[in-house]
């Protein structure tokens, strides 16, 4: 391993920023409802099961992530906590807006999650990076109403640490630049190892044994080449270099590729009936297949798991799963649903109450890695591919489930409430995606 800082400097006019929306879901709710300003807000999971996001005020009240709604109902009421079901159409649209603003302001961006992005900043745009960071923060706030934190650094790993620090320590006012910042080591000394991007739980425990406890400790290991080679893999090595301000990861270079797609949800109420369970499973499969196609992948295997009521019958087995492999990787929803129904029938027990189903697609390969055969009916054909592409386009343009598969229980949609569909009792409006739901302002 040779470390020559000079060799990294050919892109020296580019630095990295991590932009992260503060308490994104809660902030989205606030934009269209100024009355929520300063109030504790919690967002519930699909099906209103538990808390998945909190405003700062809700964190201060000590409400933990994952808090079950039914257990905290009283506490929420007593403390004036505003409760919301998750409103993904709203969050998705607001996320799109943030990314668009960011795209206009920077050299290039990588959308990292619904509320975070890495960006390349060119020092030619603004010679003062602190000023650049403030412009990003201020513009996103003005255009979308969403508060963000900005961390700027010579590498992505440091940019993430800068962001984390800027968010936590209010004196930075949401913007921290670690390029040529003499305080960098002080900040790294305060950053526990498990918070460093790419350092997992197991690695943290292993490194703690060598008295490597903070980001700073790990950074120092760059001088101990043999030690690094012995105890860290390539990813770990890159992390050490990145902590030293030597960029090893460019935009869109994820730490590890996605290995599988999991769709798992609670039913709206417990189900016994095989037909209803099959409909639910088919729906989850078509959602998972959409995700699969969105990342241009095909799946080789599928696992379906039905989850019963653990608490009712603590001694009985409550999880029933089975697995199937496809002859050739596929992203064809009918093929997946067909297989999923067979699995469901094989594991479903009569007189058993099920609460949840999970679909896992694994063995993912990229479209381009698979040869499509036009004539073998067993294979994922070009015709199937084109049909799927067409359905996805219709649903993107005209809204989810405009074109859906009959197996998902479509035929009952209009006349009868479908029992396994989600509970969403605290849903705010779809302010940006439905005309009937737009914000109202008073002229009186």
């Amino acid at each position, binding site marked *: 391993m040779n470390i020559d800082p000079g060799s990294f400097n050919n892109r020296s006019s580019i630095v990295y920023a991590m932009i992260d929306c503060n308490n994104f879901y809660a902030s989205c709710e606030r934009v269209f409802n*100024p009355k929520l300003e300063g109030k504790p807000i919690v967002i519930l999971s699909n099906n209103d099961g538990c808390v998945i996001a909190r405003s700062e005020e809700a964190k201060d009240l000590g409400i933990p992530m994952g808090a079950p709604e039914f257990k905290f109902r009283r506490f929420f009421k007593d403390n004036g906590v505003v409760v919301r079901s998750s409103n993904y159409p709203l969050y998705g649209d607001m996320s799109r807006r943030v990314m*668009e603003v960011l795209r*206009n302001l920077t050299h290039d961006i990588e959308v990292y999650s619904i509320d975070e992005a890495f960006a390349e900043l060119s020092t030619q745009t603004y010679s003062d990076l602190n000023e650049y960071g403030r412009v990003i923060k201020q513009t996103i706030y003005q*255009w979308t109403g969403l508060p963000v934190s900005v961390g700027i650094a010579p590498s992505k790993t440091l940019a993430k640490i800068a962001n984390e620090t800027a968010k936590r320590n209010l004196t930075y006012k949401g913007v921290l630049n670690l390029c040529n910042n003499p305080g960098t080591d002080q900040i790294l000394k305060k950053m526990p190892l498990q918070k460093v991007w790419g350092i997992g739980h197991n690695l943290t425990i292993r490194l703690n044994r060598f008295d490597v406890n903070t980001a700073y400790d790990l950074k120092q290991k760059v001088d101990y080449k043999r030690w690094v080679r012995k105890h860290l893999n390539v990813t770990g090595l890159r992390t050490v270099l990145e902590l030293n301000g030597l960029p090893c990861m460019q935009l869109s270079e994820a730490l590890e590729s996605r290995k599988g797609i999991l769709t798992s949800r609670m039913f709206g109420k417990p189900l016994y009936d095989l037909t209803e369970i099959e409909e639910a499973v088919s729906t989850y499969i078509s959602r998972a297949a959409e995700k699969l196609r969105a990342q241009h992948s095909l799946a080789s295997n599928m696992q379906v798991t039905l989850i019963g009521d653990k608490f009712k019958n603590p001694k009985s087995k409550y999880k029933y799963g089975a697995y199937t492999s496809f002859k050739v990787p596929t992203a064809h929803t009918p093929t997946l649903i067909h297989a999923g129904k067979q699995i469901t029938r094989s594991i479903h027990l009569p007189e058993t109450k099920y609460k949840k189903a999970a679909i896992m697609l694994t063995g993912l390969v990229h479209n381009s890695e698979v040869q499509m055969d036009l004539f073998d009916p067993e294979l994922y054909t070009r015709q199937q591919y084109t049909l799927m592409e067409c359905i996805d386009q219709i649903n993107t343009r005209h809204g989810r489930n405009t074109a859906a598969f009959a197996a998902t229980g479509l035929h009952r949609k209009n006349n009868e409430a479908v029992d396994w569909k989600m509970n969403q009792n605290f849903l705010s409006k779809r302010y940006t995606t439905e005309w009937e739901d*737009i*914000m109202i302002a*008073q002229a*009186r």
Partner: protein
Amino acid sequence: MKLSQKAETGFVSPAADHLQKPLDLEELIVHHPAATFYVRAEGNAMQASGIHDGDILVVDRSIHPKEGAIVIAAIEEEPVIRRLVKRGSRLFLISDAPKFEPITIHPDTNWLIWGVVTHVIHRYKS
């Protein structure tokens, strides 16, 4: 990859070389898509400015509000539609209807400008 391709037969349209995109209303009224939101007006206090009860307002958050602009403002956390005016060094939010007192912006007023109204979409009742 397309399996079926329509074949052109007969005479070629004389307009084929002059095809242009049809006019797009959104292009005319939305200049900053990421910052543009639609808001429904309730009440007739801004009628003289062309805003009627039930109209849809096109609101651009990216524009800096100039004196005289019609804005969506959150006053005491309530979204309202008013005209921003400056008299001397003081800011006011006024309506077109005399029965609504101008709102004076004091240094301690709890307010913010949510966005600037750029267009009104009004539907005539027929």
